[in-house]
């Protein structure tokens, strides 16, 4: 316990900000065009259907406009974004074979250590490609498939990928889903067979090192009937003075009686435009739990969506967003109730500081078929100064009388009394405020495995440094 405390005190932002010398095997020229799509498809050895899919997606991207409700993304110029950067490393299944500079980056981020201690499998993506992928033998023996998307696309699971790829998030969904469909690369494919329960999580970590590049990984997870999985996603990047873009896509299919927990600690650098799309489809009695911590990015738009199609399916979303200087983080969740007796619960915390803008945005749609649906949304926001903003924009669209829907929202400041109480017991004002903010965000940290909860609290402490005066 004391070691953990010293670890918290000693953490340094530099572990996220170290830039490796760019030593790419291939870097696509900046911009977006059908010529670039052809080149990307060639580099990725796509099957023909995927090449066509990419071209159609680009056409959709060119037709769609940026929605009028999103934060300002004028600083993002696709003409200056490289959509594909392949590192000088092929995918390995032992860290020893990963090039030293890349391996050191992941070691600083604690990924190999976490793998040894508490993970059933790890995928590590560097720029546009996975450089490491490994799954424990006993997990493989249970029939669990955890591999990179490219291998899945052309290998044994090609038909399954074809059946599910971007069916839940079609390119027509919005402009950046179309962009993803056009230029995606990297990401993970997971299949958990019927009845298999994984006691420890799988993790994918995404690192974007290349300046002025985009990362467009695709995560496709299928949890078959009665199975249970916890999947963890982490991401970070060093800070540059030009825009980087992340437009990943996560599609989760949770079959009858299955359960999936999807945890994310997002710590992109503050020049990043994080325009990510995540969606889950729940069949009968299925459960999806989202745990989300958003700390990084210059502009972020992230609203994991749960489609409760099966009767008795349910979802929980637990999230915390910390918007500091130069950040505009628009986060929240969406849920659609279709099946009978479906349940959704959202519990979020937002913190704004040093001119940061935090927006909680949600939608709960209860269709006429969703008899006895129940939904509760609770969002709380903390303003740490008057230079910041905190907005709450929830929406509920209820189409059946047989539903019970509740919503509550609160916005306020740190209580002076609470700060005074802690200071009267010898805690400095800065530590008192950090402690209160950590407590405010404990809805998320208590849902995370210990190592990740510690990392999240470290991030909060880092953000709170210098918050006095």
């Amino acid at each position, binding site marked *: 316990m004391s070691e953990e405390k010293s670890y918290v005190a000693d953490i340094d932002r530099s572990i996220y900000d170290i830039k490796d010398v760019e030593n790419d095997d291939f870097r696509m020229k900046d911009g977006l065009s059908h010529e670039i799509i052809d080149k990307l498809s060639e580099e990725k050895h796509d099957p023909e259907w995927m090449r066509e899919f990419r071209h159609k997606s680009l056409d959709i991207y060119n037709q769609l406009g940026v929605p*009028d*409700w999103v934060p300002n993304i004028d600083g993002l110029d696709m003409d200056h974004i490289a959509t594909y950067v392949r590192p000088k490393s092929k995918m390995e299944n032992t860290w020893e074979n990963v090039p030293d500079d890349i391996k050191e980056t992941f070691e600083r981020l604690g990924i190999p250590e976490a793998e040894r201690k508490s993970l059933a499998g790890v995928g590590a993506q560097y720029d546009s490609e996975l450089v490491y992928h490994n799954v424990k033998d006993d997990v493989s023996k249970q029939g669990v498939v955890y591999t990179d998307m490219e291998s899945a696309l052309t290998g044994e699971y090609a038909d399954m990928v074809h059946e599910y790829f971007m069916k839940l998030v079609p390119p027509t969904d919005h402009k950046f889903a179309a962009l993803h469909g056009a230029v995606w690369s990297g990401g993970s494919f997971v299949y958990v067979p019927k009845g298999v329960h994984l006691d420890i999580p799988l993790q994918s970590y995404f690192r974007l090192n290349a300046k002025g590049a985009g990362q467009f990984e695709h995560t496709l997870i299928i949890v078959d009937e009665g199975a249970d999985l916890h999947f963890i996603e982490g991401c970070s990047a060093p800070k540059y003075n030009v825009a980087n873009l992340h437009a990943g896509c996560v599609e989760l299919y949770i079959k009858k009686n299955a359960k999936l927990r999807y945890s994310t600690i997002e710590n992109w650098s503050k020049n990043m435009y994080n325009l990510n799309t995540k969606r889950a489809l729940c069949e009968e009695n299925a459960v999806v739990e989202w745990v989300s911590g958003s700390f990084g990015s210059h502009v972020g738009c992230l609203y994991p969506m749960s489609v409760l199609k099966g009767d008795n399916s349910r979802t929980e979303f637990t999230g915390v967003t910390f918007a500091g200087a130069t950040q505009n983080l628009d986060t929240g969740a969406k849920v659609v109730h279709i099946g009978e007796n479906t349940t959704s619960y959202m519990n979020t915390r937002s913190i704004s500081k040093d001119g940061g803008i935090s927006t909680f945005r949600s939608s709960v*749609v209860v269709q006429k078929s969703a008899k006895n649906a129940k939904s509760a949304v609770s969002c709380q926001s903390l*303003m740490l100064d008057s230079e910041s*903003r905190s907005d709450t924009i*929830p929406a509920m669209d209820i189409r059946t009388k047989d*539903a019970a829907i509740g919503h*509550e929202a609160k*916005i306020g400041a740190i209580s002076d009394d609470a700060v005074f109480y802690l200071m009267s017991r010898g805690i400095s004002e800065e530590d008192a405020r950090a402690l209160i903010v950590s407590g405010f965000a404990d809805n998320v940290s208590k849902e995370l495995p210990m190592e990740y909860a510690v990392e999240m609290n470290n991030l909060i402490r880092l953000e709170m440094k210098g918050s006095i005066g």
Partner: protein
Amino acid sequence: MTQERVINRMPSVTWNFLRANDAKIQWDEENTKALTAENITAGNTAEPVKIDINNEGSFCRKIVNIEAAEGQTVTVIENMSVAASCNMEVKTQIKGRKDSVIRLIQVQKTEEDSLLFVDVQCDLEESARFETVQVFPGKGDIYLNNQVELTGDDSSYRSDIGYLGQKTQNIDINLVVNHWGKRTECQIQADGALKDSAKKTFRGTIDLKHGGTDAVGDEKETVLMLGEDVANITIPIILCAEECVQGNHGATIGELDDETLFYFESRGISRETAEKLMSRAAIERLARLTGDEETEKAILEDLEEVL
């Protein structure tokens, strides 16, 4: 010729797939008849100023200006009636000077296949107070837009809205309260019931502006869903650019909860009767709030007719 007119747009919009960022109505501006405007300047009187506003022609607009001088109190009751196939806009513009109190009571009686657009714009100086009681037990489509500027320090606003939606009625509400001054307060309470195929949209925005320290905004909504084909959209927004403020929102949407139902049933009251009682309750509460016997009686009579 009618053209699409966009009204009730939220100051901060959200997903377009919800189709709730604003409302669109068909309006014939060229052939809109301007009804005689009313200008009310308040004197301190216990008697409310009553205005009957009846539609004339297919499209008409009535403007009511209310100004309460410093320290004065005024109550205005607007009784609005719209005949079938007619469209009426009632725009009430209010200026509350320092320490004034303005109560605006709006009661609607509309026929099926009619449209009423109620637009209230209010600006308050220091320590002024504005209260609205808006009762909609009618049959036609209702569009309500309340824009309140709490400009002066210590100014405050209280909104009570009650409705009973039925048949294919569309009730579309947009409230925006801007907290500019220090120590400003607003309380919004919207309660109603939806029957048959009625649709209701409630957008409530509490905007806690930078500099408006120690402001408090509070909104609560309860929607009782009674019909098989009803639709309810609720978007309660809190915008906050100031640290030392409080913003709260709570909403409860659904049919009668088990606890309430059990209470009624244990007293021999059937579910159907309980639902009727509860759907009356929101309107009856507001009828009493009007503080005017004649208005209260008229509202309850209308309610009987609708129920």
